[in-house]
């Protein structure tokens, strides 16, 4: 059918665009490396190909690409995918255009865990230093979700309005705790503050090995519910009458979206706005059908975040700005423009 052909075209173009952005992002930086050279270095890392690609770069160039830029770009892709998908899912379930991946308090919970790790310098005692912050962040994020979930639940049902309010309450509570930690942080204040603003300065391959499979799995599960999402938009009662197991879908989707959000937050801190505006932009561009909205938002979110991170790294050299600042600074005006132009924001 025509519809499906159009969808394929959209997804192919968005994928090409994403790969192109990743290439550019890897090439740009304080040490200027041409795109073709960067690409050769990347391909050289893949075992069967390394025999065919002659080494025409310095070892410094190779380590910049492989150890610094590539993990950073891939982290941005993973986080972009995770936040955009979670944004789509939450807006649909809550039937609320203001919902974003952080509505259930995931961000504050993660922030609390991470800042605790930072001021207690947990890394030096019982964890490997590199895992301490993301580990504590995910513990914080996931326990927050279960706390909110437990508060909102009534019997076997999970009313979305209760979830929303419980999310706000728990989120505010953890924000207050973060403020307490910051007040006590002393010399660690800067570290905590920068983490909360969100960025990819700490990106490492080790994180990607854990985050990538989780987010891919999350994508598969959410995509499996794409048709149910469309119907849930009509209202829970109608969805039930059309054979959707609403409560089951709701619980699964909330848990999966929260987990991928937690993964994203634990490797990048709190990146604002991506999870809110990407779904809206894509809804305007590709329509409300979640079978196209979900994958296209994932691709677009990844692309935008990679580009924003490239700007964050390069706009005021040698300072690297927190990426979250760039996404918010560019996202807000664009969103306002859309709001003015289309007049009406729908879910």
């Amino acid at each position, binding site marked *: *059918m025509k519809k499906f052909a159009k969808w394929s075209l959209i997804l192919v173009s968005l994928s090409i665009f994403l790969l192109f952005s990743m290439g550019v992002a890897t090439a740009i930086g304080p040490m200027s490396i041409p795109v073709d050279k960067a690409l050769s270095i990347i391909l050289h890392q893949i075992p069967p190909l390394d025999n065919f690609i002659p080494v025409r770069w310095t070892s410094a160039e190779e380590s910049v690409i492989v150890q610094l830029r590539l993990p950073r770009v891939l982290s941005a892709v993973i986080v972009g995918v995770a936040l955009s998908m979670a944004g789509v899912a939450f807006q649909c379930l809550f039937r609320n255009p203001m919902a974003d991946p952080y509505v259930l308090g995931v961000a504050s919970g993660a922030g609390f865990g991470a800042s605790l790790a930072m001021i207690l310098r947990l890394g030096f005692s019982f964890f490997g230093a590199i895992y301490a912050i993301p580990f504590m962040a995910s513990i914080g994020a996931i326990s927050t979700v279960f706390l909110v979930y437990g508060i909102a639940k009534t019997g076997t049902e999970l009313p979305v309005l209760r979830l929303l309010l419980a999310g706000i309450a728990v989120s505010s509570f953890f924000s207050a705790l973060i403020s307490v930690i910051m007040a006590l942080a002393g010399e660690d204040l800067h570290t905590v503050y920068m983490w909360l603003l969100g960025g990819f300065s700490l990106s490492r391959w080790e994180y990607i090995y854990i985050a990538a499979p989780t987010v891919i799995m999350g994508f598969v599960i959410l995509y*499996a519910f794409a048709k149910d999402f*469309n119907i849930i938009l009509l209202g829970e009662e109608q969805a*039930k009458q*059309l054979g*959707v197991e609403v409560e089951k879908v709701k619980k699964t989707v909330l848990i999966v979206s929260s987990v991928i959000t937690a993964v994203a937050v634990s490797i990048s801190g709190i990146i604002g706005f991506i999870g809110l505006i990407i779904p809206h932009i894509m809804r305007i561009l590709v329509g409300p059908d979640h079978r196209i909205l979900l994958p296209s938002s994932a691709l677009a979110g990844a692309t935008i975040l990679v580009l924003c991170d490239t700007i964050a790294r390069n706009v005021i050299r040698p300072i690297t700005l927190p990426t979250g600042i760039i996404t918010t600074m560019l996202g807000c005006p664009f969103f306002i423009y859309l709001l003015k132009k289309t007049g009406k924001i*729908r*879910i």
Partner: protein
Amino acid sequence: MVILKVCGVDCYYGSVKVLEGVSFSVNAGELVGLLGPNGSGKTTLLRAISRTLKPKVGTVLLNEADVYNMKSSDVAKNMAVVPQSSSLEFEFTALDLVLMGRHPHMRRFEREDRTDLEIAKEAMKLTNTWQLAEKPINELSGGERQLVMIARALAQNPKVLLLDEPTSHLDANNQIGIMDLLRKICKEKGIAALAVFHDFNLAARYCDSVILLHKGKIFALGKTDEVLTEENVSKVFSVEVIVRRHPITNSLYIVPISPLQEIIPTKNFKVHVIAGGGTGAPLIKILYRKGYYVTAGVLNLLDSDYEECSMLGIPTVGEAPFSPITNENHEKNLGMVNQADIVILSNVCFGHGNLKNMEAVLYAVERGKKVIIVEETPIQQRDFTKGKAEELYMKLKNSGAVTVKNYYEVPSLLKNLENELSPS
């Protein structure tokens, strides 16, 4: 063939009981109307049937299987719901929305294929909406939207169709259009349809049978003209109605006249009416409307005078149907006579069973009460006691009771008496 069967369903919202002991069944090809005032439990009943609100007691059987033991997709393959007009602020096209009706028939990762598209197309052609297929749903008019929702329900290939006020907010043309369509669908596809209506005339005209809900219980059910009687409708809806047969459509039509209000007696003036056999009802109604505090003498339970009194909430001494007045009830009647300022005797026939009522009037005269006798036909024609009643009647007339020839003379007479009596 029975497709949908509801057995003894009780439903609660929290601890509030909204449905009690509801049982009925719907056959294939039958269009059943569900009528009742606001809050009588119509929508709740649809929710209970459509597996949205589980009843505390009772079962809902779809093709003899309990819907609450079925998978929701299996229910949706056999039962479709057309909701009360819903706001649809999405950019889905009408076709997208109709294709959602195919959801229960599709596997998880499956896309709608040619067959699904054909079924959706057929449903849209049947509802005359195929030309709207590519239009965004939020740009459709209310009537078009409702037709698209019906098309979606049909795309589910259901055996049972539930509709919640399918014609509310629509103009006359669309109402008739949708009802004609519904009846056609039921007959042609053998679908059992249950539809909530607010408009009894639409229900009367289109439904094969009607269920009348009142305070969460079935008040009456059956053939449309058996259920939609003046008596049933006015009781359930607390409105005075007349029911006639329409000369053109030959269906019943029901015209509401005025709400039956709980009239609070405004006059400090008690009137006791002794009647029977329907001779008192018109007078009782008039006096009640005028604000008199009315009571009524011994009446048999199935008597239309008794029904009228109970409908108006008038204190009445009741006697078992077709039974003579017992001494106990006679005593009660005398008690009411004592309380009254005025006693009225209607143009009632007397047999041995109700002769005590005549004695009660005599008692009133003896106690010095004002007594009015309505004499529309001579007592000789109404006396079935071989002269006993006549004898008492004459005694009554000779001891100062006022006689009028027609019941509608009573109010003006009362007014005069009222002025006469009130200074004391």
